[in-house]
């Protein structure tokens, strides 16, 4: 069965960090439309600082723990705790699994999603990162249940994360800073859903390349 090992797989997280840093201005611009325009700056700062402390030969789980620590201790805002708790939960899951096959990867993402739901108290449909994450993970699980292979399921995950992000355009924000806008938050993607889609598509691509 196709799988990757935890050992030496930190490059996956470095790919994610590089993608976030590369989209610094883009994420801030989207956030500025209905938020305060600091999402890209803070995300790039957190992921960039973590990347400096991670070596490609590290364990993926320890890289996730490093990133989580930086996000929780240095970034703050809403995204610090949300992504910080997500990566901590994913690292826990990965350490328990010792490696990632298709089911283990799904369980890792599920642990991350549940951590976000617990700390963030948002629901699907509130125009948050959950609207990219939750449907993407459901589609991934469904693909596996239909007997699709790991690589195909990873592609489904990426596609559905992007589709979920795009659906936030038509949503009205119900939590976070954009919620104060009510109807005026419609017509713009959610910045958190956008960064979440970047994380999931890069994870998907980077894992698939290593299978």
């Amino acid at each position, binding site marked *: 069965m196709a799988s990757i090992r935890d050992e030496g797989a930190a490059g996956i997280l470095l790919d994610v960090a590089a993608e976030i840093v590369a989209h610094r201005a883009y994420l801030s611009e989207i956030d*500025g439309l209905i938020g305060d325009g600091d999402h890209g700056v803070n995300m790039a700062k957190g992921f960039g600082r973590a990347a400096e402390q991670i070596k490609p030969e590290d364990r993926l789980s320890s890289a996730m723990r490093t990133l989580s620590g930086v996000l929780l*201790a240095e*970034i*703050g805002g*809403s995204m610090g*705790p949300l992504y910080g708790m997500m990566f901590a939960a994913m690292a826990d899951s990965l350490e328990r699994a010792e490696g990632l096959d298709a089911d283990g990867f799904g369980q890792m993402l599920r642990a991350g999603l549940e951590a976000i739901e617990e700390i963030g108290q948002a629901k699907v449909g509130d125009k948050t990162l959950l609207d990219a994450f939750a449907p993407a993970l459901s589609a991934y699980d469904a693909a596996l249940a239909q007997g699709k292979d790991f690589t195909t399921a990873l592609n489904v995950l990426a596609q559905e994360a992007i589709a979920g992000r795009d659906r936030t355009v038509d949503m009205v924000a119900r939590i976070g800073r954009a919620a*104060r806008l009510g109807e005026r938050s419609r017509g713009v993607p959610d910045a958190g859903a956008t960064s979440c889609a970047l994380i999931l598509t890069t994870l998907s691509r980077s894992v698939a390349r290593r299978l």
Partner: protein
Amino acid sequence: MQRFLNNPDDIVDETVAGFVRAHGDLVRLDQGNRRVVVARNAGQPGRVGIVTGGGAGHEPAFMGYAGRNMVDAVAVGELFSSPTAKSFLDAIRAADGGAGVAVLYGNYAGDNMNVRMAAKMAEAEGIEVATVVANDDVCSAGPDERERRRGVAGEIFMWKIGAARAARGGTLAEVIASAQKAIDNCRSVGVGLAPCTLPAVGHPNFQIEPGTMELGIGHHGEPGMRVAPLGRAADIATEMTGLVLDDLPSPEGGRVAVLVSGLGATAMNELYVLYDSIATAIEARGLRIGRTLVGNYFTSLDMVGATLTVMALDDELSELLETDCACPALLHQRRA
């Protein structure tokens, strides 16, 4: 706009460094956390500690309110971004004198999350923590949804009242009750005339068209209740006063405290122009104005505009409001 900048990414650290240097008689930096500002006399045994925190860019809030008989420790976040849970935790630790810590902060998603996490960690260390969440901004949600309103300049009155109660030996429950009463008796409204810019972003992230004003604007440029043509100061003042007073519980004895704060790039004289009409409008309702503050007390980077906060007073709030305090943003002495 031309700015005094080194590297925009260092602006918060440099702001805190300059602040602590300038006001070393009243505050110091936390030993282990350069994003926590601590009052010199914080952590007095047996006294309830007062903590707040929030994003940078609102100077002199939040750290300017650390001092004697005021806030004991302040967590400082990135510009317009909640401090980390770790910083809130370190602030709680610094403020703890064994009688519990009251975290008095504003209703924002990030602050709610980080305070919740910090409180949990502090409780695990044996520090009793209770919170009051400020929600004085009338335009951020309807009167039936007060729990969704954000906290703005009314937080200053909340800190003042809560800290005065702590200074008088109040228990944690008493401090929380007084601070909660203060914010329940506060209503605020903001008016924006021009947007603000995060220096690292370099351009405003929202627009206010010339000739217009945004009524009900938030402390980070959150859009207000409506955009209107820019009126005369007297008319703006009357409208702001109406929005605040229509939402305010009737003050016992008809007494109120008033705070007019600039948003960062409005000249002080304009604030007094605005206050003159605000006072007229308040008195026209038969209310008497007690303590008044006019100045840059709670800003939003370089936003042009102002906020009005009115607190309905009763005997308890009047007494606590008049308690002496000394912090960099506010020197407050009992009136003769």
